[in-house]
C-alpha cells in the first residue's frame, strides 16, 4: 500500500486527505488547528486518520506559519542593510495615500525600525556596473552594531542588485563570517526584480520569518521521521507548486499564501481530468470567499500581492510568485448588519467558529449568512452539526429578527435579503476575476468548493452564465486534495530590460541559459534531478509601463522566433489591455523561468459509485429560492447514495457530509464518472 497525503492548516481546522495510489480512493480527516503549536494539530490529524507514515510515499504540507508570523508580528528581530542614501526608502515606500480623503491616514509601519536600518558605501548603475566600490569596513561596523543589539536576522538589499549581485554577495559573505548565528537574506537570493522598495520589503519579510520557519519545519520533520516517514516532506508554495522542507527554509516567503492555493490547483487538475481548459475556482468557507481564474489550464500568478492591503490601506508589497486569488469577507459566518444610513450589509466581520452562527447555540447572537440559509430551508444544520452542537433554529430566527424588525418585514424576508446581499458580494468578486479582466464567463466552468461552495455556487454560476458548475467530491477538503496533485516548482525571475531584436538574441539566450542552469543547480544541490522548465517573459511596448507575461519557446531562440514572440505578446496584450501598437518596438523587462521537478504520482482514475436517486431521496421540505419564490416539497437527496450518471432535476437539495448543494429550478445536477456533481442549465 502506498499513499499520498496532504495536510493543510486552516484558520479553524486542519484538513487531511490521503489518496490511495492504487485505487484512487480518498480518506479524509479533519481536526482542530492548534495555533499555540501548529505541529501538534498536524500530528493529531495524521494520527487520527490512522494511516501510518511509513506507508506514505509523498507528504505535502500547507501551512500558515509564515503568514501568521507576519500578521502577528512574531518574527525575528531584523535589521536591513541598504545603499548609502537609501536608509529611509523602506519607510517611505511608494508614498501613496490610499485612503484619499482621510487626513488621519496612517502608512504601514516598516518591519525594521530606523535604528536597525544601516547604509553601506557602495553604488551600482542600472546595468550593474560599479560606480562606487563596496566599503567593507562599513559592513564590519554594522555587524558589531547588530551583535550588540541582539539582531537575529539581517536583510540585505542594495540598489540594482538584480543586475549584479556582487556587492550583496560580498556583504553576505562578511556577515555570515562575522555573525554566524544570524539568518542572512540577500535580495538577490530572494527575488531579482527591480523596484527597490518592493524588493527590500520582500527581503525583509523573508529575513523576518526565516528563523521561525526553520524551527517549525525542522521540528515537524523530525517528529514525522520518528513516526516512520521515509521521504523528505514537501511544503506547498504560493506559486502552486511544492518544495522540499529543506528548500523552503531558505526562502520561506515563498509559502506566504500556500493555504488558498490548493483549491486553485485542485480546480485546474480537476479541469485537466475533465478536459476543461478554463476554470473559475470559488472557495466559500466560514469567513471568506476566494476566487481565481485559470485560463488554458494555466494558473495565473499575480504581480500585485500586498500583505494586509484593503481598499483604504496600502499594505506591504511582496514580490514572489503567488497565484492570483481574490479574497472577500463573505462566508457562512459573515455577520449581517445595518449601516448608519440603513443599508443591509453582510460581512466582512465573521462570527467564525466561536461564537459561530446564532443557531450553533454557543453564545453567538449576531445573524449570519448560515442562519439565513438555515431559515430559508437551504441547509439543515441539525443534520450536519447536530452531533457537535445543540443546533437551534429559534436562535437563528431571533438573530435574523433584529434585521426583520428594523425593516418591518418577516424573518423569512430578512433571511432572503441577507442571502441576496451576500450573493451580490460574491458575484462582484467573480466578476472582478473574469468579466472585468476581459474574459467571457461562457467559456469557463465554475468549480465551487468549501463548506458553502455548493450552497451558493449553482446560483452564482447561473448569474455569471458559466458553462457549468462543478461541485467536486469532498468539497470541504478540496484544497488539500489539490495539494496532492502538485509537482515541485521554483520560479526564477530576473529583471533585465532587453529589446527583442536580432542583435540581442544572444544576450536573451544567455540570460535564460543562466537562469535554467541556476535552477538545475539548486535542485541538484538537494539531490533532485528530474527537472523540466518552461520559459516566460514579462514583455511590454517600449514607452509603456505595464508588461504582459508571455510564454517563450523552450528552445534556444533564433531570428524566426522574434515575430512569433511578438505575435503571442500582442494577442495577450490585446486581451488584457484591448489595444495593440503594431509599429512600437517591444522589450523584455523580466525573464521568468519556471523549473518543475516531477513528483511521482499515479493517474486519477474514474471511480464506480453505485446508487440511485430513489435510494438517495431522504425527505422533502419547503425551500426559499429567492426570485423563484418559496417552493414547497423540494426533494432532499443524500449525495453519498447517488451513483454515477444519476441525474437530479431542480429544484432540489443535495446534502453530503460536509456540504450542501442547492440546485435551482431550471438546473439539473448529475454525478459524473469521478464522483463530481455537475450542475447545468436544464
Amino acid at each position, binding site marked *: 500500500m502506498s499513499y499520498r497525503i496532504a495536510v493543510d492548516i486552516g484558520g479553524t481546522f486542519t484538513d487531511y486527505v490521503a489518496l490511495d495510489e492504487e485505487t484512487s480512493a480518498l480518506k479524509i480527516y479533519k481536526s482542530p488547528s492548534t495555533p499555540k503549536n501548529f505541529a501538534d494539530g498536524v500530528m493529531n490529524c495524521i494520527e487520527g486518520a490512522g494511516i501510518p507514515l511509513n506507508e506514505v510515499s509523498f507528504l505535502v504540507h500547507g501551512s500558515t506559519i509564515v503568514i501568521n508570523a507576519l500578521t502577528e508580528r512574531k518574527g525575528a528581530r531584523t535589521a536591513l542593510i541598504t545603499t548609502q*542614501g*537609501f536608509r*529611509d526608502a523602506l519607510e517611505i515606500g511608494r508614498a501613496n*495615500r490610499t485612503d484619499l480623503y482621510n*487626513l488621519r491616514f496612517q502608512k504601514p509601519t516598516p518591519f525594521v525600525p530606523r535604528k536597525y536600518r544601516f547604509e553601506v558605501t557602495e553604488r551600482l548603475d542600472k546595468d550593474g556596473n560599479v560606480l562606487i566600490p563596496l566599503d567593507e569596513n562599513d559592513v564590519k561596523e554594522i555587524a558589531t552594531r547588530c551583535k550588540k543589539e541582539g539582531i537575529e536576522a539581517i536583510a540585505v538589499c542594495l540598489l540594482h542588485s*538584480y543586475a549584479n549581485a556582487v556587492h550583496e554577495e560580498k556583504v553576505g559573505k562578511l556577515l555570515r563570517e562575522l555573525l554566524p548565528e544570524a539568518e542572512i537574506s540577500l535580495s538577490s537570493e530572494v527575488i531579482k526584480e527591480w523596484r527597490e522598495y518592493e524588493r527590500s520589503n520582500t527581503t525583509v519579510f523573508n529575513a523576518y520569518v526565516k528563523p521561525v520557519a526553520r524551527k517549525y519545519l525542522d521540528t515537524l520533520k523530525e517528529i514525522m521521521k520518528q513516526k516512520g516517514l521515509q521521504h523528505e516532506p514537501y511544503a506547498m508554495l504560493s506559486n502552486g507548486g511544492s518544495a522540499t522542507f529543506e528548500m523552503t527554509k531558505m526562502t520561506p516567503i515563498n509559502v506566504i499564501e500556500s493555504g488558498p492555493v490548493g483549491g486553485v490547483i485542485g480546480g485546474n487538475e480537476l479541469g485537466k481530468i475533465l478536459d476543461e481548459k478554463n476554470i473559475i475556482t470559488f472557495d466559500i468557507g466560514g469567513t471568506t470567499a476566494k476566487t481565481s481564474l485559470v485560463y488554458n489550464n494555466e494558473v495565473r500568478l499575480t504581480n500585485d500581492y500586498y500583505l494586509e492591503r484593503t481598499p483604504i490601506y496600502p499594505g506591504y508589497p511582496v514580490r514572489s510568485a503567488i497565484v492570483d486569488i481574490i479574497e472577500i469577507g463573505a462566508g457562512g459566518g459573515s455577520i449581517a448588519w445595518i449601516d448608519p*444610513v440603513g443599508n443591509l450589509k453582510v460581512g466582512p466581520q465573521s462570527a467564525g467558529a466561536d461564537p459561530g452562527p446564532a443557531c450553533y447555540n454557543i453564545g453567538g447572537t449576531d445573524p449570519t449568512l448560515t442562519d439565513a440559509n438555515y431559515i430559508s430551508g437551504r441547509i439543515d444544520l441539525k443534520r450536519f452539526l447536530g452531533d457537535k452542537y445543540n443546533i437551534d433554529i429559534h436562535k437563528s430566527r431571533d438573530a435574523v429578527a433584529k434585521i426583520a424588525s428594523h425593516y418591518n418585514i418577516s424573518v423569512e424576508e430578512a433571511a432572503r435579503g441577507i442571502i441576496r446581499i451576500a450573493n451580490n458580494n460574491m458575484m462582484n468578486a467573480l466578476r472582478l476575476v473574469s468579466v472585468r479582466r476581459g474574459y467571457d464567463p461562457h467559456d469557463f466552468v465554475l468549480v465551487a468548493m468549501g463548506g458553502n461552495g455548493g450552497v451558493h455556487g449553482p446560483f452564482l454560476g447561473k448569474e455569471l452564465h458559466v458553462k457549468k458548475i462543478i461541485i467536486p467530491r469532498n468539497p470541504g477538503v478540496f484544497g488539500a486534495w489539490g495539494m496532492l496533485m502538485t509537482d515541485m516548482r521554483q520560479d526564477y525571475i530576473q529583471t533585465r530590460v532587453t529589446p527583442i531584436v536580432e542583435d540581442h538574441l544572444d544576450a536573451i539566450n544567455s540570460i535564460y541559459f543562466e537562469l535554467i542552469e541556476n535552477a538545475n543547480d539548486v535542485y541538484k544541490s538537494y539531490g533532485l534531478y528530474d527537472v523540466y522548465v518552461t520559459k516566460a517573459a514579462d514583455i511590454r511596448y517600449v514607452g509603456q509601463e505595464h508588461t504582459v507575461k508571455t510564454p517563450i519557446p523552450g528552445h534556444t531562440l533564433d531570428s524566426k522566433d522574434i515575430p512569433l514572440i511578438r505575435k503571442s505578446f500582442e494577442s495577450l496584450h490585446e486581451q488584457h489591455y484591448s*489595444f495593440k501598437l503594431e509599429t512600437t518596438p517591444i522589450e523584455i523587462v523580466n525573464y521568468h523561468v519556471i523549473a518543475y521537478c516531477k513528483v511521482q504520482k499515479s493517474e486519477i482514475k474514474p471511480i464506480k459509485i453505485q446508487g440511485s436517486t430513489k435510494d438517495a431521496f431522504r425527505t422533502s421540505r419547503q425551500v426559499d429560492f429567492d426570485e423563484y419564490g418559496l417552493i414547497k416539497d423540494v426533494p432532499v437527496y443524500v449525495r453519498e447514495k447517488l451513483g454515477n450518471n444519476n441525474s437530479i432535476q431542480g429544484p432540489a437539495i443535495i446534502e453530503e457530509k460536509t456540504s450542501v448543494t442547492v440546485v435551482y429550478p431550471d438546473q439539473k445536477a448529475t454525478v459524473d464518472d469521478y464522483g463530481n456533481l455537475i450542475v447545468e442549465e436544464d
Partner: protein
Amino acid sequence: MAGVDRFTLENVADGLVAAADEMFLSWARTSQSTIIYEVLDFATGLTDAEGNLIAQANGVTGFLATITYSVKSVLKKIGKENLKPGDIILTNDPYTGSGTHLCDVSAIMPIFYGDKIIAFAANKGHWNEIGGKSLGSWSTNATEIYQEGLQFPIIKAYEQGKLNVAIRDMIEANVRTPSMTVGDLYAQTAALRVAEKRVLELCSRYGSDAIEMAIKQMLDNGKKLALQELEKLPHGTFEAEGYIDTEANDIDDVYIKAKVTITDDSFTIDLTGSGDQVPAPINCSRYGALGAARVVYRALVCPHADTEGNEGFYSPLKVIVPDGTIFSAVRPYPVSCNWEAFSHLVDLVVKAVAECVPERVTAGHFLSIVGTIVGGIDDKTKEPFVLCEPQAGGWGAGFDKDGESGLVAIDDGETYIIPAEVAEHKYPIVVEQYSFNLQSGAGEYRGGYGLVRDYRICNSNAELTTIASRYRYKPWGLKGGNEGSNNKVQVYHSDGKMIERATFSNYPLGNGDLIRFITGGGGGYGDPLSRDPKMVLEDVENEYITIKEANEIYKVDIKLKSENIYLDIENTNNLRNNK
C-alpha cells in the same frame, strides 16, 4: 421576478457604484498613457439625468467635483433635448465646469434607455499632451490660458456614435504626441461605453423604475449620512487666513482667507476677501474651488462615504466666492498649476476648524505637490525624455499620532513615486539620495518628515520646471505644536554654484549638475514638553533627533554611556518642572 424591495434596490445601487468602478478599471487597463494607468490621474462617475452625482471612482482627490459639474455644463450649453444616444461630449474648459486645467479632459455620454436619458456616464483624466507653449502642456510661467493648450469648449466629439473626424484632426494637429493622445481619447470614450452597458443591463434586468428608485434612495442615503455627521461637528463660524508663496512669474504672495460656517444642515465656505487672480498659473477656477471644497468637506464630515459619496452627501455644502479671485479665476487667467490654489483652499478650511475638531484632522502638511518636470534630449538615444512627477513630503501630527513621513499631498492620492531603479533606467539621471528631511514640527506628537530626493544629471543637457509653495510659510502646528518646515528646490551646479528657489521654469542644466528636492515636514500637535519621554528616547535611538535636541526641544534628558543610550527620568522631570 420578485417585486422591487429594498434589498433589490441595494443591489441595483451597488451595481451603479460598480459601473463607475468598472469604468475606472477599464480606462486604466486600456490606456496607453502612464499618467492614467500608473499615476491614476483620472476619475470616472455616473450622474442622474440632471447631472447629480450618483457614484464616482477616483485615483486622486482633485477631480471630486468635476464629474457632476462637467455634466451640468453640458446640460446648460447643449441642453437635454439636443442630446442623442451615442453622443459623447468633450470639455476641458476650466471656467464652465471641467474645473481643473486644460490637460484634464472630461468626456460625457448620455445613457438612453428607450428614448429617455436615465443617467450620464462621465470621466475626466489627464492627457499627456494637449499642446500649448510647453511640452506636457503645463508650465510654471504661463500668463494666459491660451499658452496652456487646446481648448474643448463643450463640443460633441461623437455624434450618435460617430466620431467627428474634424475634431480628431484638430487634436492631432495641435498636440506633440498625436498618436498617444488620440489613443487615449479612444480609451476614455470606450470606458464610457462600458458604464453604459452596465447601466443598461441593470435597466433590462430590474426595469428603469427600479433604477430611478435606487438612485433616489442613494441620494437620500447620502444626505442622511451627511446630516448625521454634521450634527456631530461643532457649530459656528471659523476663520483662517494664509498666503500662497510660489513666486511664479515673480508675483507677490497671494493673501487667502476662508470663513467656514457649520450648522445642523449646512457647511458653508466663504472665500470672499481672498486675493485677486494673478498672471501666473496658480489660480483655480470656481469649479476648481468647488472641487477643493468637496474634498475638505468629505475629509471633515465622513472620509469613508464611499457608496454614499454622491450629490445627496454633498448637498449641504455651499461655497461663496466672487468672480476674479485666486479661487475663481476667469478667462483668460492661467490655471495650469491650479493645484496650488486648490490645495491651499483645502488646507485653509482644515486650519479654520482644526482647533475644534482635533479628532478629525491633523496639523498642516507640506501641501504643495512640488510638481516637477525634468526633460531634455537623451545623449545616448537622441530621443526626448520627460520625467514628470509630484514629490512626497511630511504630514501633520494628530491628537494621538505622529505625522506621516513621505506621503503625497492632499491633491494626490493613489499616486506612486517612481522607484529610483526604474527612474535610472528611463532617464539619464542617478538618484543619489532618497531620505528623510529631519525637520518637522515638534509637539506632544511630532510632524512627519519631508523628503530629500537628489537627481544627478548624467546628460549634456536637461531643463528643470517645478513649482512649490510653502517656501517661506511653514505648515501650521496644532494645539501648541510647532510649525513644520519649508519646501524648497536647490540646484547644485557642477561648478559649485547653488541656486535655491520655489519655482523654476525651463531652467537649463548640464552634465554633473544636481537637483535637490527638499519637501517640508508637517506641523506638530500639542506641547513638545508633553511628549512621552519614552517616545523621545525612541526618536533618539532612531536618529530622528539628537540628544541635544531631545534636551532643548523636549526637555528630556538622554544620556550616552559606553555606547548605550538611556533615559534619565529623574533629570527629565526636573528639567520639565523647572521650565
